[in-house]
């Protein structure tokens, strides 16, 4: 071999095409934006048209969007959008639904308990662990600041 390991990795890096970042960012922005607009439309519908109070309407929007994400995953559409949208479909709450539903569908064949249920959080698990930990941590800071008479 004419290359050392380090030289080979540099060479390989130069040979391998990079992701089309600008295109990916634009697609993510557009699709992610559209998902948020849909969410806002549901909020307006619940809050203004149905007269549901602000907090309940927000929760209802989350429930609706999670349902849509799960439903589109189930009929094999979400993954196809995500192929182009990337982070645009990953970051909103619909992406969370996709991350839960897709392994649940796939691992159903290994049984309802050790397959579906156990594997359901295989992708979303880390998000839950670190998300909940971080929120608890922030809660403690918030509390301490409150004790000191400050406000956020």
């Amino acid at each position, binding site marked *: 071999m004419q290359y050392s390991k380090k030289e*080979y990795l540099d060479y*390989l890096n130069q*040979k391998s095409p990079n992701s089309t970042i600008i295109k990916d960012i634009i697609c993510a922005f557009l699709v992610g934006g559209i998902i948020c607009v849909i969410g806002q439309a549901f909020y307006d519908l619940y809050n203004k048209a149905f007269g549901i109070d602000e907090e309940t309407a927000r929760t209802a929007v989350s429930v609706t969007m999670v349902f849509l994400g799960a439903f589109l995953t189930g009929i094999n559409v979400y993954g196809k959008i995500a192929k182009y949208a990337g982070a645009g479909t990953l970051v909103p709450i619909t992406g969370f639904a996709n991350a839960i539903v*897709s392994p649940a569908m796939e*691992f159903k064949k290994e049984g309802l308990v050790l397959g579906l249920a156990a594997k359901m959080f295989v992708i979303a698990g880390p998000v839950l662990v670190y998300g909940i930990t971080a929120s608890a941590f922030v809660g403690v800071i918030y509390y301490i600041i409150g004790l000191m008479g400050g406000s956020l």
Partner: protein
Amino acid sequence: MNNKLGKQTVKINDVGIISSAAIVGEKEGKGPLADSFDIVLPDNEWNEKTWEKTESKMQREAVKLSLTKIGLTTENVDRIFSGDLLNQCIGAAFGLRDLDIPYYGIYGACSTMVEGISLAAQIIDGGFADVAAAVTSSHFCTAERQYRNPLEYGGQRTPSAQWTVTGAGSAILKKGEGDVKVTHITAGKIVDMGVKDANNMGGAMAPAAYSTIKAHFKERNISPSEYDLIVTGDLGKIGAEILVELLQKDGIDISSNYKDCGCMIYNIEEQDVHAGASGCGCIGSVLCGYLLPLMKKKEISSLLAVGTGALLSPTSTLQGETVPTIAHAVSLKTRE
């Protein structure tokens, strides 16, 4: 009788491939080699409950088909060498369990087809078997769930990623017969150039192919022009380009008679497979379905088939290990 030509290469005296069969999935059945395959699956399941069962069925049916083509039954086969990509090689073991043939399970990742042919040819030439079979398979869905994410998960693939072929290939070897003779075998060494990116398999495996091909030419004291065609298993666009350049630097020019099965089985752009195809079934189906019949028809008379494999596991990738790779080569010649 010394058949050892060097550390890696041996000479095979009189073994031929008497039959072969290939079964592929739906997507492969829409690619440029569609007409070459014996069976194209109607869907991912092929009437089975799980994809793993489908993959096993593909192996079993490929073996049966390659035997019926020449009027043999499983009774006539002395040894079978098989492997696949699934944990503990269940594709092979479950698929072949009812065939009642003495079985050796092998694992060479995507080089398994060529590894199997190598072992079958040597065991026959050594006089330990008269007829032996080499089989392998991969299935896009079983590979994805083992190595990557669930199918419905919304993720993006990097441009260097390769698409796992749904396909199985079976080759039957016999002493003294067959239109295609196995003339030489070069066993690969494990090569690791420190690549960690599990989404750039072609780039990781190219040095292994380089090492084996170079050893083959050196130990046989021949040049690439000896072959009508040199094929590698699944280096894909990136790996294939690197292989040609690596050999070129050593003064070995394969640019005019070299192809990669990973670049042959799909219309790469149209079928959106990024850097090309991969999987045991890639060279498995291309060799057994397309190349061997081509040799039988004497459209090519000499072929160097190089199976390339990445010997990683999902665990090793998570633990941040580099990717060890291997390439096995078998030299085939149409019988005069």
